[in-house]
């Protein structure tokens, strides 16, 4: 029996996942605190607890995400770009194009059948379509974050939002709210603008089927629907899309052990 783990320290959430041979044994998701090193220990312990294991039982740990270099117990770090591709192809072997919509950035990734990255593009210093972006929108509209996606689907028509830039979008949303535009329609407009932006990102790497969305925003059905419309492909989405990066990291850990 081989026990390895992947740990993904993102900007908003930290994820840890334990792999037993090729099976997910346990995982945990917690918010990323100010102390990234402490967060990494906390999330790992939480996953270990669920798996009824201790850190010593793990033979290899790969870290990923923005905090990947500060995980004290990792044997190696690999970028979330490689990890999301690896994880997505493991879950859906036919996937060649991945859109990772994370806490602070969006990435378009193209890969081969083994999950190896062939091309990728990231939005540059732009929060459009990220977890942070939707947090700000939710705050501005005084709505719970989880409800944004469902509500937007009830829109009669999408309000016109010309910019997916968080600064402009926020002021446009405020202006629309003042005008009394239905919140559902505003949300639909926001999703439309975001979908356009990520579609451009995907085009930069070239879209090949099948297509998957990973990261926390994959849970927002409203955004997913709009992105699918633009791309013209159904998006494959994991049961828990937030852990795909950690899963990829764990798979790299497994490979590293097998190579020895």
């Amino acid at each position: 029996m081989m026990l390895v783990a992947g740990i993904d320290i993102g900007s908003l959430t930290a994820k840890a996942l334990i792999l037993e041979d090729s099976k997910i044994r346990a995982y945990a998701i917690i918010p990323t605190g100010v102390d990234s090193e402490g967060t990494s220990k906390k999330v790992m312990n939480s996953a270990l607890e669920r798996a009824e294991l201790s850190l010593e039982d793990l033979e290899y740990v790969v870290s990923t995400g923005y905090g990947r270099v500060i995980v004290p117990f990792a044997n190696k770090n690999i970028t979330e770009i490689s990890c999301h591709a690896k994880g997505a192809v493991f879950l859906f072997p036919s996937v060649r194009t991945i859109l990772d919509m994370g806490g602070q950035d969006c990435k378009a990734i193209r890969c081969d059948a083994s999950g190896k990255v062939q091309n990728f593009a990231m939005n540059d210093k732009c929060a459009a379509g990220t977890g942070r972006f939707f947090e700000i929108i939710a705050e501005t509209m005084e709505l719970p974050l989880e409800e944004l996606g469902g509500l937007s689907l009830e829109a009669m028509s999408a309000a016109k939002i010309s910019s997916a830039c968080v600064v402009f979008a926020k002021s446009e949303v405020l202006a629309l709210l003042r005008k009394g535009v239905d919140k559902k329609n505003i949300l639909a407009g926001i999703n439309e603008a975001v979908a356009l932006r990520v579609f451009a990102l995907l085009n930069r790497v070239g879209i090949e089927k099948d297509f998957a969305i990973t990261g926390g925003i994959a849970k927002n059905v409203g955004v997913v629907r709009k992105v699918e419309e633009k791309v013209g492909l159904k998006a494959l989405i994991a049961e828990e899309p937030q852990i795909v990066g950690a899963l990829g990291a764990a798979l790299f850990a497994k490979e590293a052990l097998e190579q020895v």
Partner: protein
Amino acid sequence: MAATIPQIDSEVQKQYAQFVANFFKSAFDARNAGKKLVWMAYYLPSELCYALDAVPFYPEIWGGVCARQGIVLKYLEAAESFGYPRELCSATKSAAGMALSGEAPPPDAVLSTQPVCDGGMKVHELVAVRYKCPHFFIDVPYTKDKNGIEYLTGELEGALKFLTESFGTELSEARLKKVVELSKRAEELHLEVNELRKKKPSPLLSLELFGQYFFPCSFLGGTQAAIDFYAMVAEVAKRRIKEGNVLEEKYRLLWAPLVPQSFLSILQWLELEYKAKVVMEMVGYAPKIEMDAAKPLESLARKTLEARFPSLGNGPGVLNLDRYREIVKDYDIDAVIYFAHWGCRTICSAVKMVKDLLREEFDVPMLVLDGDIFDPRNNPVEQARARVEEFFEMLE
């Protein structure tokens, strides 16, 4: 007797609209008409095409027409998806998007150049690659001295040689001279019209004029149509002066350097609300050009170097500043409105220099409006209106 406001669909407006329509229609019809179509970078002399009975197509100008019709965004997005930076000028980006989406009339040859901007220079390289058609780069020097004129004359000669070889035609020296003769006449008439605009009050309306004055000389230079247009405008101006049918004005404005289509409503509002009339635009300025049909290419080189480009990319900025000095004096300008088109490095970086110069040498205030010339994602009309209001409150 109070002057009545000449209708916006005046002769000037109507003929101008017809002009633009005909100009682009001929490009879309070129293939069926058995004519060669040349994609020209904005700034290059159309006379090169007319001398060979070929049809010029200026993609950046067509992008402007698309912007007015609200269909330019797809071209901008096509270019961005392809890998062009979002920061690239939207006019240039629209040209790239058109080529990538294949929705513009396909060229038989491409003539490109640099002075307007480096972005445009690079995009035209892609255009030629996409259409797999021959491409010639006309190198415009950064000096206007004898040395510079000589170099550009050689470049224009090279361009004509390139076109005749690509099309398998021959250049008629007589036709070239005729085209330059027509071009010279249009230039003279443009100067005449601008002389009339110096009158107080100025006989032509802001909205009536905008973007129109440079169009005929720049894109129809070398045609009878350009001559007819200027002759008609001069006629209208003289008639209005004679009949006393001129809108009164309190402020004489210079609009610099470009105006987005979405701001046109602001022009009319300025005129009615504040009696602020645009009596000159950087694009409406008519340079004095030495032209001689006996030396056709040298004349075209001189014309090209005296560009109508609104901020002079073809020489050091001091030349640009001299033009501001000249206009402010000659047209007795009270205030300047400057649209800083975000995509244009040349226009934006001149803001402080122009503003300082106007204040220090002429005590003329300048209002700067930010936005993007074509991009609907960055076109804050309401904000601009508010800024204009503040500006005039300060003036009054």
